[in-house]
C-alpha cells in the first residue's frame, strides 16, 4: 500500500516534470542542438548499461526463465508511449485554447515519439508472446487497444502531413487528438467488456527480486531520457519547418503603402 502511494506520487511527479520541462525547455533545444544530443547520449548510455544489467545481472524468472528479460525493453517502452501520448492530449487542448505555436509543435513531437515507443512495445510484446503464450497475437483487450491506438495515431500523423496551412493543421489535429483521447478509454472499456463476457484473463506481475526492480527502473529512466531526446529533436525540426513555412517569399515582402 505504501509502495503503491510512493510509486503513484513519483510517476505523477515525473509526468508533471516532463510537461513543465517541455513547456519551458523545448525552445532552448532549438538554439542548442548539442543540449538535445546530450540527452540522447545519456539515454543511450543508460539503456546500454540497463540492458546489460537486465540481461546478465538480474536473475532468471522462476516460471518463464530467460524469456521474461524482454520486459526490460517492453515495459519501459509502453510507459513512455503512454507518457508521450497523454502529453499530446495536454498540448492539443492547450493549443486549441491558447493558439500557442509551441504547443502545436510539442503535440506533434510527442505524438511521433509516442508512436515510436508504442510500436516498440507492441513488437516486443508480440515476440514475448510467441514462446510464452504460443502465439504472436491474441485478441486480449490490452493488445487490441494498443493496436487500435497505434493505428489511430498513425492517422494523426498522416493528417498533419496532408494539411498545408499551418493554422488549420494545428487546429484540426488538436480536435482529432481530443476526440482520440476521449475515445481511447472507451475503446479499452468496450473491448474489455466484449471479452470479459466470456472469459477473464489475468496475468498479475509481481516482481519481488530487488535486482529485477532496479533493472526495470534503470531502463525506465534510460527510456525517459530517450523520450526527451526524441521529443526535443522532433520539436526542433517541427519548429524550423514552420519557420520556413511561415516566412514570406522574398519578393512578397511589402514594398510600401499599408503593410
Amino acid at each position, binding site marked *: 500500500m505504501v509502495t503503491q502511494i510512493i510509486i503513484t506520487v513519483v510517476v505523477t511527479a515525473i509526468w508533471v516534470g516532463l510537461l513543465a520541462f517541455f513547456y519551458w525547455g523545448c525552445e532552448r533545444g532549438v538554439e542548442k542542438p548539442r543540449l538535445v544530443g546530450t540527452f540522447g547520449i545519456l539515454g543511450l548510455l543508460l539503456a546500454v548499461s540497463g540492458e546489460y544489467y537486465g540481461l546478465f545481472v538480474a536473475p532468471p524468472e522462476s516460471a518463464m526463465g530467460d524469456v521474461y528479460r524482454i520486459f526490460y525493453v517492453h515495459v519501459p517502452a509502453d510507459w513512455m508511449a503512454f507518457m508521450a501520448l497523454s502529453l499530446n492530449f495536454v498540448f492539443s487542448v492547450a493549443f*486549441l485554447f491558447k493558439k500557442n505555436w509551441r504547443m502545436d509543435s510539442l503535440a506533434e513531437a510527442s505524438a511521433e515519439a509516442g508512436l515510436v515507443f508504442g510500436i516498440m512495445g507492441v513488437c516486443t510484446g508480440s515476440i514475448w508472446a510467441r514462446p510464452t503464450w504460443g502465439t504472436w497475437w491474441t485478441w486480449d483487450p490490452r493488445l487490441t487497444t494498443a493496436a*487500435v*491506438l497505434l*493505428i*489511430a495515431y*498513425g*492517422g*494523426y500523423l*498522416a*493528417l498533419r502531413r*496532408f*494539411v*498545408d496551412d499551418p493554422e*488549420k493543421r494545428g*487546429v*484540426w489535429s488538436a*480536435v*482529432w487528438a*481530443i*476526440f*482520440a483521447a*476521449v*475515445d481511447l478509454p*472507451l*475503446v479499452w*472499456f*468496450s*473491448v474489455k*467488456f*466484449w471479452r470479459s*463476457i466470456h472469459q477473464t484473463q489475468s496475468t498479475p506481475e509481481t516482481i519481488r527480486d530487488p535486482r529485477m526492480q532496479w533493472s526495470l527502473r534503470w531502463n525506465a529512466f534510460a527510456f525517459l531520457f530517450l523520450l526527451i531526446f526524441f521529443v526535443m529533436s522532433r520539436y526542433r525540426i517541427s519548429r524550423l519547418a514552420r519557420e520556413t513555412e511561415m516566412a514570406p517569399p522574398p519578393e512578397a515582402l511589402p514594398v510600401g503603402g499599408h503593410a
Partner: protein
Amino acid sequence: MNILRGAWVILAKDMLIEWRTRARLNALLFFSLATLFLFSFAGSSDTSLLRQNAAGYLWLAVLFASVLSMGESFRIESENSALDGLRLAPADPRSIYLGKAWGNAILLWTLAVVLVPFMIVLYDVSLTMGLPRLLGTLALGALAISAPGTIHASIASNARARDVLLPVLLFPLLVPALLSAVRATALVIEGDPMDQLTSWVRLLIVFNVIYWGLGFALFPRVIED
C-alpha cells in the same frame, strides 16, 4: 432554439439536394450490396458461418459506405465555396454540424434498413427479437457513426488525399461504437437468452452522448477561418 432551427434548415436543404437526384443513396446502396456479396466470397460459402457473422457484415458494409457518404456531404459544400456562404449566414456554426450530422445519420440509417432484407435473404438469418428492436439498434449505430464521422469528414474534405484520410482518421475511433452496434444487432438476430442486449444498447447510448457532445463543442473550431 435558434441552433435547432438552423440545423433543421440545413438538414432540409441537404435532404432536398439528395431527393432531387437520389444519386448518393442509390450509389451507396449498390456499393454496400457489392460489399455484402464480397463478404460471402471472403470465407467459405458455409451458410451457418455467414449467418453467425451477418450482423458484423451488415455493419461493415454500412461503415464502408459511411465514409463515402460523409465525404460526399462536405464535398457538395466545397463546390463554389458553398461552405463559406453557409458560414456567412447569420446562424450558429454548431447548427451546421447538427444539420449535417443528422442528415448523415438519416442516410446511413436508411441504407442499413434497406440492406436488412438483403441480409436476411443472402445470409439466411431470422429476426428473433423482431423488427422494431432491430430498427432501433440500427438507428443508434447510425447516429454513433455519423457524429464523429461528420467532424472528421469536414476535416478530411479540406485536406489533400481526403479519400484516404477519412477512414484512417475515423475507423480506429469508431471501434467501441461499431463493436457495441455489432454485438447488439447480433443479439437481436440470434435471440438474447442471457439478457445482454440492454447493456450493449446502454453502451451505445453512452458513446452517442459523448460523440455528439464533443462534436457539438468542437465543430466551430474546425470550420473557423
